[in-house]
Structure formats: C-alpha cells, structure tokens
C-alpha cells in the first residue's frame, strides 16, 4: 500500500482534476478541458472515469463499479480492484450502500440519494462530433448556443427509420443551455439524469474533458413536437426477478433460438430475488451473470 499515493494519482493531479470538476459543476453541461494523465489501463477502458473517481474518493468512501449495469464484468472488477489496492477504500455491490459509484453505460435502477456521487466513463464527450468534425467549430456552436444541427441528426433518424432511432448517447439539454452527451447510456436512463439528488460527474480520459450535473439539475432529452422523446426498453419483464420497470439485456441461451431477458442492473435483480420476487426462469438460471459477459 505504501508504494502508491492514495488513489494512485499524486495530490497535484487530483487538485487539478478537482478544479475541473468544480468548474463543471458551476457550469452544468459545459465540457471543461483537463490534463488527462496516463493511467495503467488502455484508453477506452474508463481512464476518464477512473481519474474523476481518484480525485473524488476519500478514505471513508464506499466504492461501487458497474459496467453496463453489472458488478461482475471484467472492466468493473478490475477498476474495483484497482481502487481496493491503491486507495484501500471499502467496496460494495449494493447501490444503496455506495457513496461513490463509477459506471459505464448505465444509471443504477435503485434511485440515488444526496450523499452519493455517480461517475460516468465517457468515450466521446462532444455530442456534435459526428455532425461537425472541427473542434473549433463545435466549441463556437456551444458558446453561441447553435444547436440546430443536433435536430438535423434526429430529423435524419425519423426520415430513414420512421422514428428517432438513436437509442443510446441520446443528446440532452442541460438547464436550457448546453447540449450534452450523457455518455452511451441507453435512452431508457435519460429521465433519471434529470432532477437527480446525487452529483453526476462525467470523465473522458482520451478526449481530456470533464463535465458535470449538480444535484437537481433539469435535463431534457431533445425531440420533435410530433415525435416526442420516448424512454424505450425491451417489451418484456425480467425472466429472473420479474421486474417490469428495469432495463433488460437479451441473453441467448442456446443455439435453437432460446433467449431470456434479464435486468442489466445485477444488484437490482439480485435484491429483488432475495426479497422473494421471481421471474419465469428463476429456477434454472444462474444467480450471477458472468455467462453473458
């Protein structure tokens, strides 16, 4: 343990990241540049989220990591172990017990509270990137609030697919000002961004950007009057715990076309099963979801 400074990064780096976080909280949805460090993991594996977590953690924290909702996937397990070793913080798989939750591509189903911080891993922080490749131009578009182009993307979706086909990383407008990429969470999770009691921090390591949503921020998903935003999920209940209100993964169980739908949030699913809820396949399915990684 003595080989590492607390939470791996040196104190000066953590101060620099905290300054970026504070600025991000002061200007919700604005992308703050920061001097992203090399981390002992490849870009794309959550280096932004890890740096934000490192700057946020204190020794008393209880830390949880999820990857697409699951606590037991490779990415989640390695990041959790990383902070167990370098920060010595307690860890947990229970959403309600955690004080800092690092997430990739999901918001937990269990509602968050005021004493929690949710840290997102973000691959591409710029929502306008695929419409306008020039960073100079996208920055200008943000500063001048020129967001017509974002609706061109949604228009294209409807004209090609008959509905807004964007199903993840669905663009949102924060407090009526900045358009923000909520990271690749399914659009099912978008409503949870808004008016959330917890602090939400977004870190993009390769792109060197941090942005944030302070508690109880108004976040609105962009849409058209005649094609309103819809938080969609598979039209099914969880086959393990019977939940009808959680986001589901479709799991192929054999090569005869057999499939089951299970909660993507493993902690939520387990909690429900421990409380006695059952889905149609509860008996023969494993308790963990390692098989679908």
């Amino acid at each position: 343990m003595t080989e590492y400074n607390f939470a791996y990064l040196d104190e000066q780096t953590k101060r620099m990241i905290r300054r970026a976080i504070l600025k991000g909280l002061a200007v919700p949805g604005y992308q703050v540049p920061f001097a992203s460090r090399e981390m002992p993991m490849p870009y794309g594996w959550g280096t932004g989220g890890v740096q934000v977590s490192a700057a946020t953690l204190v020794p008393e924290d209880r830390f949880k990591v999820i990857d697409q909702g699951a606590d037991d996937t490779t990415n989640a397990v390695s990041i959790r172990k990383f902070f167990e070793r370098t920060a010595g913080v307690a860890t947990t798989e229970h959403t309600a017990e955690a004080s800092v939750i690092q997430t990739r591509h999901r918001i937990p189903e269990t509602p968050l509270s005021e004493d929690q911080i949710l840290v997102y891993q973000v691959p591409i922080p710029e929502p306008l990137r695929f419409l306008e490749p020039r960073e100079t131009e996208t920055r200008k578009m943000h500063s001048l609030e020129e967001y017509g182009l974002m609706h061109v993307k949604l228009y294209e979706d409807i004209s090609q697919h008959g509905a807004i086909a964007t199903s993840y990383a669905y663009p949102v407008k924060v407090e009526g000002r900045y358009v923000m990429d909520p990271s690749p969470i399914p659009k099912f999770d978008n409503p949870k961004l808004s008016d959330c009691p917890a602090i939400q921090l977004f870190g993009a390591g390769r792109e060197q950007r941090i942005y944030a949503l302070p508690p109880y921020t108004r976040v609105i998903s962009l849409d058209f009057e005649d094609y309103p935003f819809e938080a969609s999920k598979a039209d099914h209940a969880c086959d393990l715990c019977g939940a009808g209100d959680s986001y589901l993964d479709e799991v192929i169980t054999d090569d005869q076309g057999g499939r089951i739908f299970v909660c993507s949030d493993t902690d939520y699913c387990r909690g429900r099963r421990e409380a006695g809820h059952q889905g149609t396949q509860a008996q023969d399915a494993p308790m963990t979801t390692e098989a679908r990684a």
Partner: protein
Amino acid sequence: MSTTPLLQVRDITHYYGARIGCRDVSFDLYPGEVMGIVGESGSGKSTLLGCLAGQLAPDAGEVLFDTRSDGLRDTLKMSEPERRMLSRTDWAFVHQHARDGLRMGVSAGGNVGERLMAVGARHYGDIRDQAVDWLGRVEIPADRVDDRPTAFSGGMQQRLQIARNLVTGPRLVFMDEPTGGLDVSVQARLLDLLRGLVREMGLSAIIVTHDLAVVRLLADRLMVMKDGHVVETGLTDQVLDDPQHGYTQLLVSSVLQV
C-alpha cells in the same frame, strides 16, 4: 422600389498583409435589386463578398444592413451571435461549389430543414412539408427528399443548395459564381430558376461572377473590379453595351462569340 437602401456599403477595404484585397468599395443596394460584381481572377470580388457576408473582417469600412427589428445596423460591429443569426435568417450564401454549402452526409430534406431547425422549428411534419415544397420549387422530385446530395448531379446539388438557403425567406442573397463548373444547358436552367425566384420573392442579391452572360441575365446593376478597385459601375446593359473604362472594354470584347 423603396427609397431606403437594404444594404449600404461604405469604403470597404481589406488587405492581405501588404497586398490589397479590395479597397474603398462603396455602393447601395435597394430592396429587390440584383447587383453583379465582375472582374478577372484576383480582382478582389470574392474578398469583397466575404467582407460583406461577414466571413472576412475588413480592415476599414462599414456594412450597414436594414435589419427587420432595429433598422440600419453596422453588421461589422454586431456581436458574433447577432451576425450569425442574421446569416441564417435574413441572409443567404450560395457557394460556387455545392459541396461547400451542403452537408454531404445528410439527406436533401435534412439539408433544407437545417436552417428551419436552426431558427427553432421543432415539428418534424412541418419541416418535412416545407423541405418537399422547396425541392419542388427548385425542380427536384419529391421522391428524392431522403437521398443524400452525393447521389445528386452537379446541377441538382447546386439547386439543392439554393433551396437550402432560401427556405427561411432571406432578403439578401450572396452568390459566389453560382453557375461555375456547370455545363451550359444546366447553367441556363439554373439561371432561369434563379431569375424566377428573385422576381417572385423580391430578393436582393449580390452576384459575383466572371461570366458576363450571367450578369446580363440576372443583374440590374453592375460593378467592374480590377486589382481590388472598382473601375466602373452602372446599369448592366449600359456598362456592357457602352463600356467606358479600358479594362471593361477589354473584358466585354474578350467574350467568345459562338
């Protein structure tokens, strides 16, 4: 024709380092009037157009535009958000190469709809109806509305660019060689279309070109530029039929007769 000019240009000067881009250019443009600017390559006509349209910052001069809300304003002294707002509502810019003015990865309907969405349209059905209507006006079949401009011919791309620019009902259109690079029969149809739209919508336009036939057809007045200076100005027919300045005489006599 109204008595207040829509656009008043005063002593516009732009230098590229020590070289002159354009110098001391002044003119008035009245509502519904089409002004042609001709001259050879390097004469400063595109520089001038860039200065007027807010794409280049002139070193001296004023560009006064009669805005809808608060009357005559110097567009060069406007804040950037104001100027950008102007350039997607009251102004339009038709580029020589359609690729510069279109989003090639976005369908024709999306291209036309972009300006509507940029000024706040949020009803898909309405946006699409307007897009289809405008495609019809520029003679693009309605069933091509979901095709990308990459699937269009050069002439169609140019017409799409015009539709995209005119959909918000601008009052002033800047055109930089709108017929450049098109073959003559396509040019003729495009000019026909432009002439119709200009008359029908009462547009004012500034057309930069080196093609004298284009200005003969479209422009009411003509300005001839050489080495960054305006050497002659007047009614189009008058300038072309009775050129006074030596350079204009050379220009007019250089046109190939078929």
